[in-house]
């Protein structure tokens, strides 16, 4: 049969795999030979977005580096649920030291490998948003400033989840946590500037900064691959819903992440040397209420009488993201 070029493949590149695509156009995750960097039997909650995000990012990095990879992990859910002594879920070289020093340890590992002349071995540092945005922030900024050869990945679930869902500097306004009760005239977490670490990372002028979600695997894997093509400090911020802490159904993890992107709440983009170079456009725009209603941490905003005024402020934040990054598709993008 003659070869015919067809530009349409049923699920195109939205699904994880696609039997109609050639193997190199499918994701790492669709491959039976993927590393499974984090193995079965880990104790993450049902539907954990972070377990998923970590496997996605590390398996992609393992493929790009042909398995020449060391991961350094901060304290946090990811470390706790994967390594209760004497078990480990890690199927890659993996180190854990403290909550606040993962970027510094990663720097050290990179330096040691350089001294030993093993430049082909690459280093990934990883932490949750607590270890990145709050506790590890000083060492992270130092790692950026020195431009150490580390890809640092933050799995952002917007709070300290394994210690009982406390607020972090990545917790969004109005969200209820154990330390931000949904009471009073301004219920939940306060409105403020928060800490937008991807933009802070960009301000360091490092080679590569990107955001991604667990809902768009092709995008996430491409960004890991892109990040590994640079040397120097790189930063990847992955949005990973937490069913427990957010009060969402465990089955909704990916759907919630998708809505965060489709509403404009979480802008997905990438930047090189401090300049935005690419934006993942919104495909089916949705109002923020669709995202908020799936999560009990926002339940106080709805019902009777509800807080339509507060919802409007959150919508305004999403709209500001859409405007800042140009998240809406234009005719030219079609």
């Amino acid at each position, binding site marked *: 049969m003659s070869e015919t070029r067809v530009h349409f493949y049923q699920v195109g590149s939205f*699904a994880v795999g696609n039997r109609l695509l050639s193997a190199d156009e499918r994701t790492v995750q669709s491959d039976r030979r993927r590393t499974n960097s984090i193995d079965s039997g880990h104790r993450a909650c049902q539907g954990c977005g972070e377990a998923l995000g970590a496997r996605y990012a590390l398996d992609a990095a393992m493929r790009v580096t042909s398995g020449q990879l060391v991961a350094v992990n901060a304290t946090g859910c990811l470390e706790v649920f994967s390594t209760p002594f*004497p078990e480990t879920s890690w199927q890659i070289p993996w180190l854990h030291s403290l909550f606040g020093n993962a970027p510094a340890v990663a720097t050290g590992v990179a330096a040691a490998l350089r001294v030993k002349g093993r430049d082909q071995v690459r280093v990934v540092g990883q932490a949750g948003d607590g270890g990145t945005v709050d506790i590890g922030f000083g060492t992270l900024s130092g790692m950026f400033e020195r431009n150490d050869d580390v890809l640092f990945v933050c799995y952002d679930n917007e709070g300290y989840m394994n210690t009982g869902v406390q607020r972090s500097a990545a917790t969004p306004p109005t969200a209820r946590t154990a330390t931000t009760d949904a009471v009073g005239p301004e219920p939940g977490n306060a409105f403020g500037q928060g800490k937008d670490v991807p933009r802070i990372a960009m301000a360091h002028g490092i080679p590569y900064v990107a955001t991604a979600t667990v809902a768009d695997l092709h995008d996430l894997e491409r960004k890991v691959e892109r990040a590994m093509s640079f040397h120097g400090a790189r930063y990847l911020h992955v949005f990973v819903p937490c069913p427990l802490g957010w009060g969402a159904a465990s089955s909704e993890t990916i759907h919630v992440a998708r809505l965060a992107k489709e509403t404009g709440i979480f802008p997905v983009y990438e930047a090189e040397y401090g300049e935005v170079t690419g934006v993942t456009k919104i495909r089916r725009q949705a109002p923020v209420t669709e995202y908020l209603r799936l999560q009990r941490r926002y339940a106080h905003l709805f019902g009777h009488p509800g807080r339509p005024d507060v919802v409007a402020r959150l919508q305004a934040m999403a709209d500001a993201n859409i405007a800042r990054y140009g998240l809406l598709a234009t005719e030219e993008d079609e």
Partner: protein
Amino acid sequence: MDRPFAITLDVGTSRANHTGSWRIERPVYVDRLPPCNDACPAGENIQGWLYHAESGDYEAAWRTLVQENPLPAVMGRVCFHPCETACNRVQVDEAVGINAVERFLGDTAIERGWSLPAPGPDTGHTVLVVGAGPAGLSAAYHLRRLGHAVRLVDSSPRLGGMLRYGIPAYRLPRTVLDAEIDRIVALGVQVATEHPVLDIEAEQRAWGADAVFLAVGAQLGKRVHIPAGDSTKVVDAVSFLHQVADDDPPLLGRRVVVYGGGDTAMDAARTARRLGATDAVIVYRRNRDKMPAHPEEVEQALGEGVTVRWLSTVERFEGGRLVLERMRLTPDGLPEPTGEYDELDADALVLALGQDTDLSLLEGAGAVTVSNGVVEVGHQMMTTQPGIFAGGDVAPSERTATVAVGHGKHAARGIDAYLRAETPARPERHALASFDRLNTWYYADAPRTRRPELELVRRQTNFEEVVRGLTEDNALFEARRCLSCGNCFECDNCFGVCPDNAVIKLGPGERYAFNYDFCKGCGICARECPCGAIEMVPERI
């Protein structure tokens, strides 16, 4: 004991921790019935054959198709595709062009000379099939596959029944029809044409047949009394179309009026246009919403310059002039006379008011029950007389070629069970794959590919086929628009989205399995399955 200081245990894998014990619901893979399959009167596994067409394996697709229906090139032209009406993709953009892909497969099969599956091992039984229309042909095919000898008789000189003598050539070219009929006959069907059957039981004895399938169709055009002058020409649409098919068209003149609102009326009017009528007018007693003709047919007829007098009945016809009475619709949608009249010049009047069956051949078969002009049939098409089965237009149903093909298949299976003295098995029916079970995010956006139509001027004057086929590119594109509702198409989503690596990918064509030792029952796989082929069921605790 050479462990480091203060370390008492070796490092072990987390696989020791069987997190499957956390689960209160377990995911299971299911196959659901796609709405297209559910709607197909011929019982085709549409999703099944589209799956093969998607990968460009047209032969496998065609082979899956002909498991149920031996006439894909014919059906790809004349079927009114209830599958597309039922298609879930309607709610995303437009229905998948199933009918167009079916035609592409049928045409490709003819072009490449693929043959039907070989007949089954000889059972020693003989079945008489009376009538070689779509029902009879379908029954003959399925009976041969089941290993029964088939005698196929028809009163006309050629096989095909209404496919040949009712459907005009611009909708179904005769070369296509002949090719698909020849393929069935080549399975070893013994054929007798120009063989009218007058007494079914005598005929059965004459052939030594163990069972009979009666599929003589509805060949008699219904007549109504219309006062008409001597010189006026009034014909019925069935005879008119039959004569055209015999290359012996009657002379109707320039102004032809067709009375009726069904597909036969459309066929008659469009045929009249092609024979040179400058005015082809359809007179119909209700409005367009109530018209029984399929909208596509109406659209094509209007596009060819056929006009319609809505809400009118024919009162009388004399001296080249037709008197029409205007009607109005009651709130119940029934037409009622207004007492106002219009006139219309006409050279001929064609009556297309429905068709009746000629069941005089059953007079000897006393046990066959006939009511309202059709034969009563039970499960798997057996009449009230054991051993005599009936289908197609003689059985109560919607009278379409596709329904007839389905009847032929069911009757063949019923006859087979009867001859083996078995109770016919009812295959298990899966639950419907409804739209709300799909996760449409994952499907690429793609509007439907249209089949090109012959330019208007050309199709008004000749019998060339109006609707052309898809190119291979378009057919492939169209097939790939299928959402595969309710049936896994191996997109790897479940394998990719499991946070616990508890989905095992079994390889191409083998789908997946769950590793229940580690599946925590979060339900992401079921939520993110595009086609709804995973179900969460409560765990027995």
